[in-house]
Every structure is written in structure tokens, then in C-alpha cells.
């Protein structure tokens, strides 16, 4: 599903250049639930941005669903973000002026899905995150945990190939973290491929596989033992 070959990312700002990724290679198969771990500055966010087609790599190869992403234009990347990738952010990133329902419908607006179908699919997605009763509220009227559930609904509504979650529980307390991780695990059980960035070992413990990064390199890659399951 995801295949990275020797991915290098160099940030060049004026005289100084910083190599954030020093030749990352990895293979992620459909249905996997992978945590990427590492201290801050290790390049895991950069990796996430490249995997999410938000950023371009300096060199290397990225194959998503058999398609080479490396040379695509901005609009082609937008198309891939729209249809293949579901983002879940640490700070939720919901649009404050829109209702919950509208927020979840938005990716489908960009995918060109007709209004009626959008409504149905958004309601179904909100059902999956157990939030079908607050669809007319705005993001500032609901709790952090609920916001993240809306964000998850938004991420899955276009049936993406992978769900990329960047510290999804970073702003949440332990109890809510458990709720969110339960939902993500559920999605994975239902067949979704999940990639999670975290620096909390507890959270990583919910996934099936852990990739450990340090200074722009993968230092460890192992299957999770004694996985936390609900």
C-alpha cells in the first residue's frame, strides 16, 4: 500500500540546510496499524507530511497504492489528499464557522459528490464515531473529545486508503484518549490502514506495529507485543 524508498528531505533556508529525513525506506500493507514514534525533531512530522502529500520530498520514491507520487503537480496531490488520505490532527482543525455536519461534508464538496449523497455519507460517518446527535452544533459548542471524533468522521468520509493521525490525543486527557483510540482501533478492525504519529508509548501500544525514529532515520521497526485492545 505504502512504499517509501530512500526518502530524503532537506530543508534549505538560506545558507543553512537541515536534513530532516536521511533516507527513509518502509513498507506498509493494507490493514496495518502503525505508530511512528520518536522524540520531537526526529523527523516524524516531516515524514507524516510527505506521506500525507502535503509536502514534497527532496529525493527518493513514494508509491501509494501502486502509484508513484514523486513527480505529481500540486493539483494532483490535492486530488490524492482528497480521495486517498484522511487526516486527523492534534488540534482537530475543524472550521469554526461551519456546523459539525458541514465540517464532515467538506471533503466530499471538494471530491465533487452531490449534495444528497454528501448528507447521507456524512451522517453515516458521524454514526461510526457515535456523534449523530450533535450535527447542527458548531465546533466551539462541543468538547475536545467530541471535536476529535468529528475530525475522525471527516477523515473517513471519503473512504481514504489510509488514515494519518498526527498526535490525535495530544490535546486530550487520559479518559478521552482511550475513547479516541478505541474508535481508531475500531476503524482499523473494520479494514482501515492507520498511521499514527505519537511520542506517548501508551498510545503507541494500541497499534500493531511501531516504527521508532531518531534524527531522521528509522532506528527500530517491530510488532507490538501485549497490545492494548478493548
Amino acid at each position, binding site marked *: 500500500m505504502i512504499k517509501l524508498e530512500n526518502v530524503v528531505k532537506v530543508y534549505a533556508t538560506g545558507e543553512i540546510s537541515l536534513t530532516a529525513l536521511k533516507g527513509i525506506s518502509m513498507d506498509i500493507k493494507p490493514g496495518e496499524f502503525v505508530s511512528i514514534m520518536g522524540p520531537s525533531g526526529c523527523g516524524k512530522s516531516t515524514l507524516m507530511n510527505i506521506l500525507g502529500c502535503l509536502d514534497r520530498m527532496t529525493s527518493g520514491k513514494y508509491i501509494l497504492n501502486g502509484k508513484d507520487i514523486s513527480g505529481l503537480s500540486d*493539483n494532483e496531490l490535492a486530488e490524492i*489528499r482528497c480521495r486517498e488520505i484522511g487526516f486527523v490532527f492534534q488540534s482537530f482543525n475543524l472550521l469554526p464557522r461551519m456546523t459539525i455536519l458541514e465540517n464532515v461534508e467538506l471533503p466530499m464538496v471538494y471530491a465533487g459528490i452531490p449534495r444528497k449523497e454528501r448528507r447521507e455519507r456524512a451522517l453515516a460517518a458521524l454514526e461510526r464515531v457515535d456523534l449523530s446527535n450533535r450535527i447542527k452544533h458548531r465546533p466551539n459548542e462541543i468538547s475536545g473529545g467530541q471535536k476529535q471524533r468529528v475530525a475522525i468522521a471527516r477523515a473517513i468520509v471519503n473512504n481514504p486508503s489510509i488514515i494519518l493521525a498526527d498526535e490525535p490525543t495530544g490535546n486530550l486527557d487520559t479518559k478521552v484518549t482511550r475513547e479516541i483510540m478505541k474508535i481508531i482501533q475500531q476503524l482499523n478492525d473494520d479494514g482501515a490502514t492507520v498511521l499514527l504519529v505519537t511520542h506517548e508509548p501508551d498510545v503507541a501500544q494500541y497499534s500493531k506495529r511501531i516504527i521508532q525514529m531518531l534524527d531522521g532515520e528509522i532506528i527500530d521497526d517491530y510488532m507490538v507485543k501485549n497490545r492494548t485492545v478493548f
Partner: protein
Amino acid sequence: MNLIENIKMAIDSIMSNKMRSFLTMLGIIIGISSVISIVSLGVGGQNTITGEFEKIGVSTIRITVKTAEAETSDYITYKDIEQLKEKIDYIKYASPIKYQTGVASSERKSRTAMVYGTNEDMIYIDNTEILYGRFFNKIEFEEGRALAVIDETAARSFFGTSDAVGQTLNIGSSSSTKKATIVGVTKSQFEMFGSMIDEEEMPVIIYVPATFLDRLYSKESRISELYIMADSKENTEAAGILATNMLMNRHGNRDRDVYKAENLMKQLDQINTVLGIFTAFIAAVAAISLLVGGVGVMNIMLVSVTERTREIGIRKAIGAKTSNIMFQFLTESVIISCLGGIIGLILGIAGAYLLGQLAGITPTVTPQIIIVSIAFSSAVGIFFGIYPARKAAKLDPIEALRYE
């Protein structure tokens, strides 16, 4: 991503910042409304003047004697006028005009007046409506009877009533006056000025038989100004040429060019040209304010793009293309300017009628003005919206998502 979605989003965004959106529109509103009022009033003014001229008649020619070069024998006589009418088929009416400034007084009032001496044809050439009584006739002209025709504002001023038929007016210079009987009252001569001038301030014009004017001022009948009206618009030019030819023959002054024939329509064209330039100039000045309004739209759109950097990042992350973002912001600026344009249009028309009421001009609102103003405000929206929209569309999604 269709147009309706875009318009809905744009309206949401405009409504969430009502005050700011309105203030942004204000520039466009002021610009469009002032252009509309000025142009409508300008065109209305042109139409009023054209109407006045057409009342006098498109087939009217004014023949004047160039007094600086003329000798006594060159002046037009009553006999000339008779002959012109008789011999030239194209000429339907011919009237001399002589005027003297004098004093006119009734029992109520004494006022300075312009006394116009003419003949019975003047009522057709002048084409003024008679409200009461009648104009003097041919016999009365020939006999030099002491009769007068005034307009209704003068009638009210002298007699306190519009219907002054049968009343007498003392007309003449300060040294000698003669009584003249009012036989007719015409519609106000200065209607086009409306309420701009107080009735008592309006000049008094008194039409009398030219022969009576001669008696009044004891002067010989020298005529330096003559109006002729042709039987049709087409024959007007020819009638003028024939008339001056005949005058030259009768006075034997072919060698000297002392008669001048002018078609009033030519003067009208000149006046309209001047008025048109004037209107265009003021409208251009007003259009500058529209430009300033456009800059206002751009300014606010730039602020809006900065404020919504994060929103743009989110939209891009979940799949918005560059064109989607661009179109979203462009729609917003076009809606702001268009809405401003529509409000400006309404206010402009209202303003034109209000100012028109004060100035006594009926504004003319043409469909072209409406179409052009709406098109222009949309163009302002596109022109001044494109830069902010491009800026929004080009934002790097990662940077935008990090923006606080």
C-alpha cells in the same frame, strides 16, 4: 465544487463579518451611486434641453443681420417678411423679434420686463401653450394694437391670478408708457428651471405686436432678428438659403455678407456636446472613488486571507485544489462589490431623483447605465480580488496549518 457551494460559502463569510463587509462595500456604494446619479442627471438635463429646443422646433432658422457691418438699408422690414412667406413655399411661418428692456406695471406691482415685439406667427414658432385667451392675430399686428401676451408666472406676479385676460398693463420706458390689454396667458416660459428660481425673481417676458413696440419707443421698424419655420425638417436648410438669398436680392447687398442663418439644432448639438463632456468629466471624478472602493475591497480581502490562513490550510489538507481556494476568495470579493454595486445603483437612482427634484431636472435612468454599473462593480471585484485570491491559493498547506 460548484458555483452554488462557493456562493454559499462566500455569503457565510460575508455575513459573519457584517460590519466589516458593509464598510468595505461602502466605497463601491459611494462610487456607483455617485456615477449613476451624475450620469442620470446629465442625460436627463440633455433631454430637457433637447425637449425645449424641439419645442421651438427643429425646422426653425434664425436669421440675423450682422449689425456691425450692416447699413441702415440692410435691415429687414415687415414687407420683407410678408414677401418671404408669400414667395418661398418652404417657409410656413416667419416672425421678427425686436426687444426692448422696459418697465411693466399693474396696480399691484411694477417690474422690469423684456418686451418682445413680434407678429402673429411667433406662437407657432415658439410653440408655447396658451393657457388663457389667445395670441394676437394678423390684423391686430398690422394695426399695431396695444395688446400683450404674458406667461402665467408673470400673470400671477402682476395680477395675483393666472387668468389675466382682459387686464391692462402699463408698458414702456420710465419716461413714457402705454396701456396694453392682455389677450393671452401662456404656460410659464421658465418651467425648466422649476423651483430653482423664485417666481418673483423670474424674468418677465411680454409679447406685443412689433408694430406696437415701434409706437411705444417711437422707433423706425428696423428688424435685425428674424425666425422662420420651414414646412418640414428636410426643407429647413433650403428655406434658410432661399430666405437669405431673397433678402440679399431685395436689399441689393449681395456683395456684402450681412445676413446670417443658423439652424437652432446646431446650437443644440453644441450645448449637448458641452453638457456631455461636463457630465463625463464629473462621472470620471466619481469613478475614481469607485477605484478607491476597489482598493478597499482588496485591502479587506488581504486581511481576510491572513485571518483565515489556517482555514485555507485545513481546506487544502482535506483536498481543496489551488483553484478551489482561488475561486472561493474571488467569489467573495465579487459578491461584496456586486452587492455594493446593487445598493449603489438603488441609492444612485434615488439620489438622482432627489437632486433632480431640487434642480428641476427629470433624471433619465437608462438600462445601459444599470448594466454598465453592475458590470463595472463586478469587474472591480474581480480585478481587486484576484491578487488576494491568488495569495490565498498559493499558501503552503503546512505553513498554513501551523499558523495561529
